């Protein structure tokens, strides 16, 4: 606690006046003028109270005892244990500029659009749980200076000859970069961090512990090495562009500079250094079943971002309302085919089911990438102790994309082939010359569509099997079984109207189960187990690590 020099009362940082204000006598002080006794003794560390949650193990710094009854990370009402700790002093801090009211206002704007988000998230009492947290960031500075020698080439092509000219480009470079920032908190995902970015580092101040009075602060637990490569690459890209612009002009305007990132680091003497910083974020965790979803608002700019779980109740109501809305339209469409109603419905159901399985297949691929966690460099490093380096080579990225998309290409060719096969039947060119007669889909096309859907369901289900916590979901498997039943009906008796209606119902049920799986997976990914479990001591560590998949 920071004490008022005039009356000894508790002073806290006031966002609006940007000063420390005494609750008792309303005196105000500049943050840099307020220190605790021990602060001036140790320049690298400062003394603070660290609260630990017995439920999830989260550790958070706070100067106020208010933190002792509620865990910000796992949203549990519990008694937090506290201890006085010496923490490494950050170099910079960006103080809060948005008040809680402004933050809630910004958050309400995004919840208005999230029509399927749980209703509790629009409740003022819940929104009051937003806490002001300083999240640790790494603040990278990059310096480049020295003489360089790089290679350039100019290639001229004529109809018969290729002539290549090679050059040496010498010069001197000086570059200074400041403010390349990445979050240094394991619990705070890169994705959320990037979505509330940017922070404008012009607003940074030298850190004084008094800035934390009245706020929470997370403890840095991601090594600075994790993002060093990104900072280095960014500076090298800019320097390469500068050298290129300075040399590829006049008689050398067609020359191109060839320089890899490693060569650039060597030639430009690129050196990266990291400083500690604290950035302001309004933060709230929302308990959804056993996991938590994080709601965040940038405390400097007010930009809000969150991963909202889909409320199953609202999803069901949405389906009901839309079914009632679509009913007159589908009634009208079905009435257009009085003689072949059941068969036309089966054809339409097959096409819709095909759309559902394509959606499932594509979404499962996206979820698989998100689920792997490889997009979050901090978590990737925590798990593997290997720095994740994004591949930026366009040719390599294209090759990688093609390698990963071979199944997509094969399935695309399969569907295009089927449609080409069916076009004469749809147009009825081969028989009575009637244009576009739905309900006259060829038997072969129906079987092809069902088989195609079965393949998509199978691939999707295999992908789902590779996801964590996937054991609970069997939508695609059940959908596949129902699809196989429809295939059996089609092969045994394709001419029965009643069986066609039953087939349509089975297709509808199968596709619904499959899509509902996607909703469940979405909720799985938008919420997370509290990320601090590894900080707990004793037997709990072993137990938690066994249960905890990144």
């Amino acid at each position, binding site marked *: 606690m920071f004490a008022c020099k005039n009356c000894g009362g508790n002073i806290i940082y006031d966002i609006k006046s940007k000063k420390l204000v005494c609750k008792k006598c309303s005196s105000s002080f500049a943050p840099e003028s307020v220190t605790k006794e021990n602060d001036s003794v140790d320049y690298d560390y400062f003394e603070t109270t660290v609260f630990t949650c017995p439920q999830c193990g989260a550790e958070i710094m706070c100067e106020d005892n208010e933190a002792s009854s509620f865990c910000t990370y796992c949203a549990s009402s519990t008694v937090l244990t506290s201890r006085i700790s010496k923490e490494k002093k950050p170099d910079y801090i960006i103080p809060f500029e948005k008040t809680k009211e402004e933050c809630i206002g910004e958050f309400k704007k*995004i919840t208005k659009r*999230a029509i*399927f988000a749980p209703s509790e998230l629009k409740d003022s009492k819940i929104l009051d749980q937003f806490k002001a947290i300083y999240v640790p960031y790494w603040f990278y500075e990059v310096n*480049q200076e020295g003489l360089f020698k790089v290679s*350039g080439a100019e*290639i001229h*092509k004529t109809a*018969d*000859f*290729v*002539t*290549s000219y*090679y*050059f040496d*480009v*010498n*010069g*001197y*470079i000086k570059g*200074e*970069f*400041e403010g390349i920032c990445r979050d240094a908190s394991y619990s705070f995902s890169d994705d959320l961090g990037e979505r509330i*970015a*940017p*922070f404008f*580092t012009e607003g940074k101040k030298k850190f004084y512990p008094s800035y934390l009075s009245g706020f929470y602060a997370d403890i840095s637990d991601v090594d600075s090495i994790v993002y060093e490569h990104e900072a280095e690459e*960014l*500076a090298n890209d*800019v*320097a390469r562009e*500068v*050298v290129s612009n*300075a*040399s590829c002009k006049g008689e*050398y305007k067609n020359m191109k500079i060839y320089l890899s990132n490693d060569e650039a680091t060597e030639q430009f003497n690129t050196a990266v250094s990291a400083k500690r910083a604290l950035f302001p974020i309004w933060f709230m965790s929302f308990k959804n079943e056993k996991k938590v979803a994080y709601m965040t608002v940038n405390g400097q700019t007010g*930009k809000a971002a*969150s*991963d*909202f779980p889909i409320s199953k109740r609202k999803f069901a109501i*949405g*389906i009901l309302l*839309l*079914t*009632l*809305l*679509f*009913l007159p*339209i589908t*009634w009208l469409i*079905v009435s257009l085919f*009085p003689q072949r*109603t059941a068969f036309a419905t089966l054809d339409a159901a097959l096409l*819709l*089911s095909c759309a559902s399985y394509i*959606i499932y297949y594509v979404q499962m691929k996206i979820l698989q990438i998100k689920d792997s966690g490889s997009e979050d460099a901090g978590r990737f490093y925590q798990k593997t102790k290997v720095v994740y380096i994004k591949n930026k080579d366009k040719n390599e990225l294209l090759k990688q994309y093609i390698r990963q998309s071979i199944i997509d290409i094969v399935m695309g060719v399969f569907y295009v082939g089927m449609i080409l096969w069916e076009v004469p039947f749809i147009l009825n060119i081969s028989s009575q010359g009637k244009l576009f007669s739905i309900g006259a889909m060829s038997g072969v096309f129906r079987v092809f569509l069902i088989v195609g859907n079965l393949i998509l369901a199978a691939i999707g289900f295999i992908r789902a099997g590779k996801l964590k916590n996937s054991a609970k979901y069997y939508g695609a498997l059940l959908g596949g079984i129902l699809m196989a039943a429809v295939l059996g009906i089609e092969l045994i008796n394709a001419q029965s109207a009643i069986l066609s*209606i039953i087939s349509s119902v089975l297709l509808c049920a199968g*596709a619904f189960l499959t899509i509902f799986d*996607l*909703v469940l997976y*979405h909720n799985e990914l938008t919420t997370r187990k509290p990320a601090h479990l590894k900080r707990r001591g004793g037997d709990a560590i072993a137990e938690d690590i066994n249960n905890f998949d990144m």
Partner: protein
Amino acid sequence: MPKILIILICSLILAFFAAFITCYFLAKITSLPGKKSEAEEDEFNLFGVKYDCVAKNIEVKNKSYSSHERPKDDKTRIY
């Protein structure tokens, strides 16, 4: 089975089908607010970064050149 009942069942099946697909898309689109646009994503790296980078005393020297018949497969090869 009466015709009207068949039409009702068939309409319901298709309406339900269209409803849950639409609902999924609506839920998906509205549940991830704050997503970066592509333009923002490109800018993100240099956004908020203060930098100053200059190259001076540039000197370009001819090193070598090669000329060869253009390959039949029209691919550029550098030797």
